[in-house]
């Protein structure tokens, strides 16, 4: 049927794109599962992988620690001041501390850290892996007896998770100190009141949820760029930017998904 060809073509393209999209997610899922299993296997940790993990942590966390700490401190302080002022204006001053700590420590700072690490190291990892695939380095590594998954990718995932954990911990601790100072000023006599409010916020489920969320963020910022890079077709250099683009969009989507799921679990 001559008239139907364009429609069939369009449907075919649409179906292929859908399949590619699904394949991308399947690749991500498979890689994430392998990464989690491998990182929990003690045999993964030998001197070679340890070196890669160290480098990953060094570049992902240590290098940006001063800048990130300063940035998160400024942001935290500004947000706390806004919340405290608004709460006082509306007569809810007693809830100012609780509201600002909930907003910062439980929601904004973990997400901010993940975005920071994802945009910086995630993009770099995605590009690197895509280039390796394009240049057929994967095959070369495999031929020389080095399992790229085990010696290149899993250590990066572990390093990425630890980096996000470390940066979130530092930023959150700083935010708690700043929140105390913003609400009570430079004095120590309100510590018991502060402790009481913190006790109200951080019950065991809340802490467990926070840690799970930060772990998920850490996994996402490394697993998605690697799996997206691995999906790049060999010998097609022009595909590298597309791979990075897709990886970043997917990363953003996953981070938001994790955040929404955590909110749903907490408040519903």
């Amino acid at each position, binding site marked *: 049927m001559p008239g139907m060809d364009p429609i069939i073509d369009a449907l075919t393209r649409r179906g292929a794109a859908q399949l590619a999209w699904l394949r991308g997610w399947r690749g991500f899922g498979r890689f994430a599962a392998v990464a989690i299993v491998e990182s929990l296997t003690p045999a993964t940790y030998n001197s070679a992988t340890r*070196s*890669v993990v*160290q*480098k*990953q*942590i*060094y*570049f992902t*966390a*240590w290098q940006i*620690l001063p800048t990130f700490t300063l940035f998160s401190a400024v942001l935290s302080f500004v947000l706390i001041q806004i919340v405290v002022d608004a709460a006082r204006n509306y*007569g*809810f001053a007693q809830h100012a501390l609780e509201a600002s700590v909930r907003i910062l420590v439980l929601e904004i700072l973990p997400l901010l850290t993940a975005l920071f690490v994802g945009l910086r*190291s995630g993009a*770099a*990892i995605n*590009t*690197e892996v895509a280039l390796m695939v394009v240049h057929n380095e994967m095959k070369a590594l495999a031929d020389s007896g080095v399992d790229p998954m085990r010696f290149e990718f899993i250590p990066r995932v572990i390093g990425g998770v*630890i980096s996000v*954990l*470390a940066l979130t*911990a*530092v930023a*959150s*601790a700083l935010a708690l100190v700043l929140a105390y100072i913003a609400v009570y000023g430079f004095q120590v006599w309100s510590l018991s009141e502060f*402790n*009481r409010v*913190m*006790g*109200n916020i*951080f*019950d*065991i489920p809340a*802490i467990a949820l926070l*840690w799970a969320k930060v772990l998920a963020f850490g996994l996402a910022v490394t697993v998605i760029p690697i799996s997206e890079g691995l999906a790049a077709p060999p010998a097609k250099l022009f595909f590298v930017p597309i791979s990075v683009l897709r990886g970043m969009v997917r990363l953003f989507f996953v981070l938001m998904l994790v955040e929404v799921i955590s909110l749903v679990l907490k408040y519903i």
Partner: protein
Amino acid sequence: MERAPVRAPLIKNMEFKVGLLLVLTMILAAGFLFYALFARGAFERTQRLILVTENAEGVEAGMSMTYAGFPVGQVKRMNLTEQGQVRIEMAIPVKDAKWLRETSVFTLEKSLVGGAKIRAFSTNLKDPELQDSAERPLYTGDAAAEIPEILAKVKAILANVNDMTKGDSSINQSLANVKAVTERMTGEYGVIGGVLGAPENARKVVQAIDHTNSLLTSLNGVSLKADGMLGKTDQRVFGQGGVMDEAQKSVVQINAILGDVRESLKKADAILANGQAISADVKEATTDIATLRTEVDDSLTKVNHLINEINRKWPFSRDVEVKLP
């Protein structure tokens, strides 16, 4: 690009830095967990307090109970009993338990805005302390629940106010009367006019007062005259050359006369004594003469008595000596 082999030589003490970061992260994570447990009172000894109420709307686990605005306990769990009452189990830190006494009262307050509040009130802190696992009623004070009642009362009050402000209300009539009284008060006869009601009555009172005034003036003149008369009488009776003065002089003269009379009588007595001696023989004659002499003596005694009597009755003339021979 983070290709390790290229940059590796440039990194100094990478292992130490990464190790430091790892240790810091672990300390923060573990410390945070420990801190959260500490802040939630996991390491604090607590005692139980059961609060029983009909309606625990707004109460939730983790809510604080306050005493004088300070948190002294938390809601641990709540359940509904078979009798349809709510049992709220509170955890009171042992160090704060001293604020709760046997006589303490617990209230659940719900405000229009914001959450419910559980409050403890201890009026006498000398009462025995509240026992562990004590059960107390939780009184509910719901601001919103009272609104219909308050509205009903306000309506009644407004109706009363309406009645009061009507044209024929008692208050209006009273005010009209007050106005009439005060108008009279501002009239010719002032307050008296206001009190007595009519100007004629007031005029009579004023006239009476006027009369009394003139009467008092006359009385004053009378008393002045009386006063002058008394002064003159005094002058005439007791003054220099007055009645008393003259009387005194007369008495002095009488005294002198009587003194002379006594002299004469003494002479007569002496003559009579001689006559008695001469005519002693003549018995009859002598008897008559003796009678005569007795009579003369008698007269003399009387006169003497009279002089003494006058002197006694006029004491102010003491200085005037009656010279007796």
